[in-house]
């Protein structure tokens, strides 16, 4: 621990010295009587002060949680010597909320791009206790998870004081306990169906014909056809054997494209919050129906996961997703920075983007030009943007909205389904709109 003197030592000692000198100069005992308590307090306090001996340990009761859960951090203290006052200060990261409102959801002015991400310094929670010699104490702090993200808990500052508050001892412990807070997945009944399916068995009805359940067509019998495929009604009507053809059930490859270049924070949620929450919900829903899901986090940091299936892929994807944050950079990023296997052929790419940064906008155009099956969920920053007063404010907002609409039309003309998503609308409704939009859209030439 580092020992520091209190500022009052200098004040008391200086005043005592001045008073003693005044007493000598005036030849009177009163200044000495005034100085004596200050001098004695300083001398006796410094002589009696002993370095505190403390054992400190802190643990969290879990390392994964869902938004809304509570995580308990236990700080165990053991004093070998008595400590008159020990201040414990636990830094609560933004996104978590401690007792009495410490920490909490990061606040930035509504509508400001590039808001804070998880991991910035937060507001502390503090407690002062008294410890007797040999006393063990466990202090429990309950933190409420208010926002998704990957956090580090256990940034603990200790400050011990002696009885007369003349010295203080400080120590910093960073226990680096990891905590990942996942967004609560929304229940999705209908998902965006890709134009093309893959070769493995799944839950999506393929457009091709083969062995399956869904009826597709009938055709004349050929050697090798199974007798159970014979359509007896058509055979009787045409006088020769005809068989049923069916659509096979296949899996699909879905790549979730999360744009993390910019984050526009509204009163409740930000565009990145919505994107990450939607990506987690989509990944859970697609993986439940045995599709393969990959991830591209496209922002200052480009991170990717090749499509995978099963519970392991879900955990990998959620873990990667939780580390998404806005990282300001001017470097140009493009699709060519991604490994080829990240975007497999015939994969459906669901882009979750506020369509604000030109690099993300250009990357989506690039994907369309390469013939990928693309659906864009445009997370509208307009609702989170602060209302602008004055003569030109509403006009600027209207121009911005028109500009965004033009951009969406450009995507639609190239064959992508684009739907605007505002925070008030449920994700399921947005997905249904995307599906409706895709029925009308023509796939880009591949």
């Amino acid at each position, binding site marked *: 621990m*580092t020992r520091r003197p209190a*500022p*009052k030592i200098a004040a008391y000692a200086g005043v005592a010295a001045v008073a003693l000198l005044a007493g*000598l100069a005036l030849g009177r005992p009163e200044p*000495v*009587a005034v100085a004596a308590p200050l001098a*004695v307090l300083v001398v006796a306090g410094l002589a009696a002060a002993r370095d505190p001996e403390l054992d400190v340990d802190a643990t969290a009761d879990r390392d994964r949680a869902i938004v809304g859960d509570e995580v308990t951090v236990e700080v165990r203290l053991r004093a070998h010597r008595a400590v008159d006052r020990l201040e414990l*200060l636990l830094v609560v990261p933004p996104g978590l909320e401690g007792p009495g409102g410490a920490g909490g959801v990061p606040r930035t002015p509504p509508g400001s791009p590039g808001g804070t991400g998880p991991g910035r310094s937060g507001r502390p929670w503090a407690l002062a206790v*008294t410890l007797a010699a040999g006393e063990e104490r466990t202090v429990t702090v309950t933190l409420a998870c208010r926002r998704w993200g990957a956090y580090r808990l256990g940034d603990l500052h200790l400050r011990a004081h002696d009885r007369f508050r003349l010295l203080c001892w400080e120590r910093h412990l960073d226990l680096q306990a990891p905590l990942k807070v996942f967004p609560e997945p929304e229940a999705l009944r209908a998902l965006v169906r890709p134009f093309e399916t893959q070769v493995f068995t799944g839950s999506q009805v393929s457009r091709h014909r083969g062995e399956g359940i869904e009826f597709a067509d009938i055709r004349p019998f050929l050697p090798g056809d199974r007798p159970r495929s014979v359509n007896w009604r058509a055979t009787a009507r045409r006088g020769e054997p005809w068989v049923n053809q069916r659509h096979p059930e296949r899996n699909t490859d879905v790549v979730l494209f999360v744009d993390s270049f910019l984050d526009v924070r509204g009163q409740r949620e930000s565009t990145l919050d919505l994107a990450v929450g939607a990506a987690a919900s989509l990944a859970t829903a697609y993986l439940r129906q045995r599709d393969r899901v990959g991830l591209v986090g496209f922002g200052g940091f480009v991170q990717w996961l090749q499509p995978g299936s099963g519970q392991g892929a879900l955990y990998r994807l959620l873990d990667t997703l939780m580390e998404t944050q806005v990282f300001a950079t001017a470097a140009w990023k493009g699709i060519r920075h991604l490994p080829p296997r990240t975007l497999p052929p015939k994969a459906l790419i669901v882009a979750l983007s506020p369509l604000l940064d030109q690099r993300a906008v250009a990357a989506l155009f690039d994907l369309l030009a390469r013939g990928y099956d693309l659906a864009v969920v445009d997370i509208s920053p307009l609702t989170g943007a602060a209302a602008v007063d004055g003569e030109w404010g509403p006009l600027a907002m209207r121009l911005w909205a028109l500009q965004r609409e033009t951009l969406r039309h450009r995507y639609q003309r190239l064959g992508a389904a684009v739907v605007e998503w505002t925070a008030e609308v449920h994700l399921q409704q947005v997905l249904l709109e995307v599906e409706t939009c895709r029925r009308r859209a023509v796939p880009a030439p591949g």
Partner: protein
Amino acid sequence: MPAPRRARTRLACRLAAVAVAAALALLPVAQTGDPLRPLLAWLAGLGLLLAAGAAWHPAALLGPALTVLLAGYTVALLGLGGRVHAWAPVVGAGLLLFGELACWAREAHPLVRDEPPATKARAAVLAASVVTALGLGALVLLAAGLPAGGALARLAVGVLAATATLALVAVAARPTATR
């Protein structure tokens, strides 16, 4: 409601510190005659201003505030003539009380929740310090009345005591890294 209680503790400490400083500043003014009264009034005003500043925020103002209050009392002593001022122990204890209350006001940060035993222990130490200061001041005044050597011997003892106090403080109060 812990947060308002912490804020109340802080405010109470600040107000008490200013009240003690006001009493210390006005005592010499009340007990001194006309020639020195305007000067003491100015000193009292300045002392009160610095005391309020020390109680509210900057730690650097504590020393100047104590010095000005002490200066006011010392100037008042000049007008008393040869008789010993019996209120000196009260002034000494008052200065100590003001300093401790100002420090407590800074210590009682609204962010830090003090457990009740810690607050009680702090109040007990403060009360004991003030009582001890009163006794110590009275003891000094009594000891000054005893015949003990000549003026040169007293001067030597005084200079030695002041030097030793400053040296001890300088050695003991340096910041060090311990275990």
